[in-house]
């Protein structure tokens, strides 16, 4: 694996923060998230199994992890477009990194983009549930 060519998680996160903070208006941030949701390929129906459901979301969110070589690749879907966008954003951030990298990384984008303050508590819970699920996958693949 050519380490040098890969962008680190922190760098990718900063890019995500810059992308979101480019917008002053929250409606524009949502538009960005919605666009992410629309662009996301999602998961084929056959792969949307109950064991992939992230508990704690108001809408149904599926998150799937696969190991490709040393790194994990995340794919996600939701029956609602905003959670789909958020899940896709997070899946993109964490895809291509080893379980060890993911476990060592402490994300700050939720605070730095204002997502934490802006989402209602139930929605913020949904977001942290997705992040927690990522960690669980990383842990499972690390020990596997």
């Amino acid at each position, binding site marked *: 694996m050519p380490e040098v060519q890969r962008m680190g998680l922190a760098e990718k996160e900063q890019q995500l923060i810059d992308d979101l903070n480019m917008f002053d208006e929250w*409606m524009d941030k949502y538009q960005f998230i919605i666009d992410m949701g629309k662009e996301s390929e999602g998961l084929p129906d056959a792969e949307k199994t109950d064991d992939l459901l992230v508990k704690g979301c*108001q*809408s149904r969110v599926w998150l799937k992890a696969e190991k490709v070589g040393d790194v994990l690749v995340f794919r996600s879907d939701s*029956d609602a*477009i*905003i959670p789909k966008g958020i899940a896709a954003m997070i899946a993109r951030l964490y895809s291509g990194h080893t379980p060890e990298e993911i476990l060592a990384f402490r994300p700050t984008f939720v605070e730095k983009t204002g997502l934490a303050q802006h989402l209602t508590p139930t929605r913020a819970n949904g977001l942290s549930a997705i992040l927690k699920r990522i960690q669980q996958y990383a842990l499972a693949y690390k020990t596997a």
Partner: protein
Amino acid sequence: MSYCVDISPLDKRVECWRSHFPQLRRKVHGRPLVYLDNAATSLKPRDVIEAVQQYYLRDNANVHRANHALGHASTTVYEDARKAVAQLIGAAATQEIIFTGGTTDSINALATALSKSYLQRGDVVLLSELEHHSNIVPWLELSQRMGIQLVYLPIAEDDDRVVKALEEHIERHRPRLLAVTHASNLTGRVLPIERMAEVARQYEVPMMVDGAQGVVHHRIDVAKLGLDFYAFSSHKLYGPMGIGVLYIRKKWHDVLPPFRFGGGMIDEVDYQSVSYAQAPYKYEAGTPHVAGAAGLLAAVRFLESIHWEEGLAYEQQLLRVAVDTLRKVDGIRLLGHEGGQYDPIVSVYAPKVHHYDLAVLMDQMGVAVRAGHHCVQPYLKKLGLKGTVRISLAFYNTEEEVEYCADALKRSIQILTG
């Protein structure tokens, strides 16, 4: 005391009504709040907020058996609230009003009491298909615990058909209890309670009505209707959270045993025996929510002071505007509102858009609506839906707010499908 009664035209009066609700002045996400989630809980008039505050500032002491001035003041407020509620819903006697924690608590209490003294294995409880979970789950628990059977009455758009279906269901299933909602929290559909009560009386089936929504939009007269039980919450009726009412018709006071035990509900206690007080006290163990009662009393007085009937008539007018305006929004459908009687609640869904996404964007535009299953999952499943966006109105809402909401809905759909 009277508020806003001499003010005309109507829009000026609505403005005056609004001035009594401090929350209407706040902004969300930098925009003026458009609060259309009244079926979940109403906003509180200043009088209610002040009554709760005054209670703690001045009168706080425990009720009953207090031999001092504050205890007396506290008891007076509490019992005045009971009288005011009795008058509000047309109870024949004050002791028919039992204070509980809210509608859910009331129905739980009733189900428990009935399970101990009246319902037996195999008995049928007849509910409607439109019930909120709070009028399903307590009965489901009885069905699992003691084998009562639940039968659901279909609710057609046409009242005649509802009444006919009720007769048929009673003939066929011989229910021991009819427990139905006054009005649906999902669609706003008002059940023909008066005619249903008549049928129930003919067949001698006791009747419980879940008035969580209904009491907010109707002048009800439980004695005249001959209802056995009526349950509702204070917090949807402009009062504080944490207190509610279970009306128990007097003839049941000797049948229904207490459902909670402890202080305040006894006549005499020995180490090995107990005798209970008379209703309502035998149904109210422990220290009650007196501050809540003070607030509820203030809410009832507030409604009288604005001439509540005019607010109710205005709500219906606003509902017609809402239905007409929402019908014009492309890409959405309304649940019901096709002829039957409705309270000012409209549920909409967009076949191509998730209700969750709509509510998120509408919230960004300052519109508070509720998205989800609204605790009515069985009926939604019957319709093949996962959820709706629910717009629920109160007399302090305006036509401008309704139009703004419809516009926010339209813009949200465009953003999500564009």
